[in-house]
């Protein structure tokens, strides 16, 4: 035996193996299931949060970075609660849970699920299905918060450019970017002038309404009287660009929503909105939960609140643990043990369909999603409220190639099946239009009718939309064997405690704080707003209720600041050249289009 320490090489497992004597250590093989530890005994937290939906998750992160100790639980084995992104298997469980009104699935009704597992070999985890899909505006409180909290590090964002409006049995795309308006062949000069006047009005830093405006004038009448826009354009502006789902919205709120779209261009690029890859609110919830965990929040899924003794401030969970609550309990409505006081329920109806088509025809080149809006009275069901659709293709990371997910929703009442008729009517139109677009035989047409992209892919109009050009409108749709098959179709009505039809509830939220009789704060269910607008404000409202002030909401001095700066400097140097190249190209383009627009304005003035 020598006293020499073994060299690194000798200490490598591979060499150690051959020289070592047989192990006397008991075999661990066969012991498969590890024990999940329990929460510590006599645990004591400032705030207990039940449900890992988006608002709750933002709250968990904000509170723990502020120094509050947080225990965050969810009755389900996944993150996201009422805004989760689910696999097909999880959708099946969700369906059963909702049917039986279990904790975690309390606010759904009229649920129907169809899954075609026989014809399609569905791999459950290839799908990410959002219970309440949302898109992100570049200038929005959530985007600011994603950056400030650094949660964007955990996520990937992609662009969404195509906003289609359904009218006269067609899908059209409005060009709301100034440059596009000038080059569009579809809008006549007179309309271009009116549209430009409106865009100028809406783009001003503060919207100034004319003095002599009739009281309570609707946005529809305002656009008609003051800008002489035609009905088709008015519908596109209000419902598609504004993403307004309540036709009774107040004028100034409507204008702000339209402005939100117009001002979104050229912030991250020539597109108005973004979405998070692999899933919407469910994915972003996970990001905020991770941030909360980094700040010290303790997570335990598959766990729910069983009872709360408000006098002694003691919570009992279903895993048997006894938690002392120093301050408050916050719970989603889905996971609450009791209903809040004076709570009424309102409805949002949704259809989620997975189809065996890529739907690339509806996406802008290089993108994988689009918005399609059915304005009021555009459907056979004579819909009073618009139907909003979000189409997600395979590059969103939410479904495999050759498939897509269609999300439709409306705030129309469910009485007399109004809502479901509107949704099904819209679904049928989507089918018809898609088949017409995708089975078009371009060889049957003259070159005059077609335009070509750079890659020689033919399109029917200048704008890149699927709308038929005038000379093709006479084309009779031939019977085709092509049809759309559904892998999954889920329809349900989601309840919310805020009246979505009341125009005062902007983004489907209000200023009130809901509480149960034992003083648990209730977080509202997702609203009908298709963007993330209103979410951060909801989180701040509750944060303020607990902390007393929201001035330090995510006012964080990150521990790893130095490290990050060092890294980003390195990164800067690397991408700077690339970015500069892109900016240069952009500048050239902008200069050109500016010239173009100046010329045009001069033309108008003369």
């Amino acid at each position, binding site marked *: 035996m020598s006293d020499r320490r073994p060299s690194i090489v000798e200490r490598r497992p591979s060499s150690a193996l051959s020289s070592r004597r047989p192990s006397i250590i008991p075999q661990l093989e066969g012991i498969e299931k590890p024990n999940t530890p329990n929460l510590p005994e006599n645990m004591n937290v400032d705030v207990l949060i039940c449900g890992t939906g988006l608002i709750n998750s933002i709250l968990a992160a904000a509170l723990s970075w502020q120094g509050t100790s947080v225990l965050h639980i969810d009755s389900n084995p996944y993150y996201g609660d009422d805004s989760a992104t689910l696999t097909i298997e999880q959708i099946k469980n969700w369906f059963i849970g909702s049917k039986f009104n279990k904790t975690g699935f309390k606010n759904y009704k009229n649920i129907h699920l169809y899954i075609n597992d026989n014809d399609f070999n569905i791999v459950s*985890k290839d799908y990410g299905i959002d219970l309440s899909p949302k898109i992100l505006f570049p200038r929005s409180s959530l985007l600011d918060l994603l950056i400030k909290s*650094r949660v964007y590090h*955990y996520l990937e964002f992609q662009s969404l450019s195509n906003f289609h409006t359904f009218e006269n049995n067609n899908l059209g795309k409005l060009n709301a970017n100034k440059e596009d308006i000038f080059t569009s062949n579809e809008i006549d000069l007179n309309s271009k002038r009116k549209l430009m006047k409106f865009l100028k009005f809406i783009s001003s830093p503060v919207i100034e309404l004319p003095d002599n405006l009739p009281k309570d004038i609707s946005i529809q009448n305002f656009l008609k009287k003051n800008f002489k826009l035609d009905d088709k354009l008015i519908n596109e502006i209000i419902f598609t660009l504004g993403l307004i789902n309540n036709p009774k919205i107040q004028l100034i709120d409507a204008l702000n929503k339209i402005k939100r779209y117009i001002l979104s261009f050229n912030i991250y690029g020539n597109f108005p909105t973004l979405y998070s890859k692999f899933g919407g609110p469910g994915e972003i919830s996970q990001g905020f939960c991770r941030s909360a965990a980094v700040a010290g929040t303790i997570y335990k899924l598959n766990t729910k609140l069983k009872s709360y003794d408000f006098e002694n401030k003691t919570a009992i969970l279903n895993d048997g643990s006894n938690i002392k609550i120093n301050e408050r309990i916050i719970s989603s409505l889905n996971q609450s043990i009791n209903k809040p006081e004076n709570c009424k329920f309102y409805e949002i109806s949704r259809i989620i369909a997975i189809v065996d088509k890529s739907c690339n025809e509806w996406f802008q080149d290089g993108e*994988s999603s689009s918005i399609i809006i059915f304005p009021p009275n555009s459907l056979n069901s004579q819909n009073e409220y618009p139907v909003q659709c979000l189409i997600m293709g395979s*590059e969103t990371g939410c479904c495999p190639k050759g498939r897509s997910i269609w999300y439709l929703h409306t705030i129309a009442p469910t009485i007399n099946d109004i809502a479901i008729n509107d949704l099904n009517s819209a679904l049928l139109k989507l089918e018809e239009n898609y088949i017409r677009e995708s089975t078009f035989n371009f060889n049957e047409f003259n070159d005059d009718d077609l335009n070509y992209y750079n890659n020689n892919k033919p399109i029917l109009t200048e704008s890149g939309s699927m709308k038929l050009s005038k000379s093709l409108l006479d084309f009779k749709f031939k019977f085709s064997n092509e049809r759309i098959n559904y892998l999954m179709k889920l329809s349900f009505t989601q309840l919310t405690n805020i009246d979505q039809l009341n125009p005062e509830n902007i983004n489907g939220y209000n200023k009130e704080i809901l509480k149960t009789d034992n003083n648990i704060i209730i977080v509202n269910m997702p609203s009908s707003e298709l963007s993330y607008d209103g979410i951060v404000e909801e989180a701040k409202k509750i944060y303020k209720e607990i902390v007393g002030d929201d001035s330090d909401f995510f006012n964080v001095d990150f521990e790893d600041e130095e490290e990050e700066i060092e890294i980003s400097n390195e990164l800067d140097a690397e991408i700077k050249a690339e970015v500069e190249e892109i900016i240069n190209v952009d500048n050239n383009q902008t200069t050109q289009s500016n010239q173009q627009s100046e010329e045009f304005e001069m033309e108008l003035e003369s």
Partner: protein
Amino acid sequence: MSASNQTSIKLVLLGEAAVGKSSLVLRFVSNDFQENKEPTIGAAFLTQKCTVNDRTIKFEIWDTAGQERFANLAHLYYRNAQAALVVYDVTKPASFIKARHWMKELKEQSTKNITIALIGNKYDLIMDETSGEEIDGARKVSIEEGKQLADEEGAVFFETSAKTSYNVNEVFMNIAETILEKMDNAKPDENPVAQTQNNNRIDLTAPSQNNINDNGCAC
């Protein structure tokens, strides 16, 4: 996109609480070790570059942030991870059972091409510094069993000590080499790195640098 010689790799840590996951990273990233380190809070992720021949791998290392404690790691954590360290403590049998569980979990949750290293940490606790021999009875998980689990799952196996830095750099170098090798041998559409890097990805921090003429409406 320029043909840079640098490849970014997302590496995730897995393993029972207190097996020394963060300590391993701390040793690798800043060649430092803290006795009685508090459970992990505070760091979202750390980065460290590693040069193999003339090529650079930039590790973006994700720590569990304590979310592993009650087996509650989010999908987001595994998403697009190209490498994983599954760590156990050579003196704690329960942590090895947990490691086996994490190996399975990785199979279900992660990308197919992921490079995995199984790590038996705290090697210093079973080694007698002066004799260079193992302290009798200190080791609770045999090398053979670790090696066997690694082989079954197609992972590489190391025993390490974050405290003495034994084998720590070797782990990361081995992963870097493996990934570069996989990249070289992959067909264009199977490239483990290119697959997860998407040119439609938008950098949310870009406008703050670019938009100087922004009119400042941040409503």
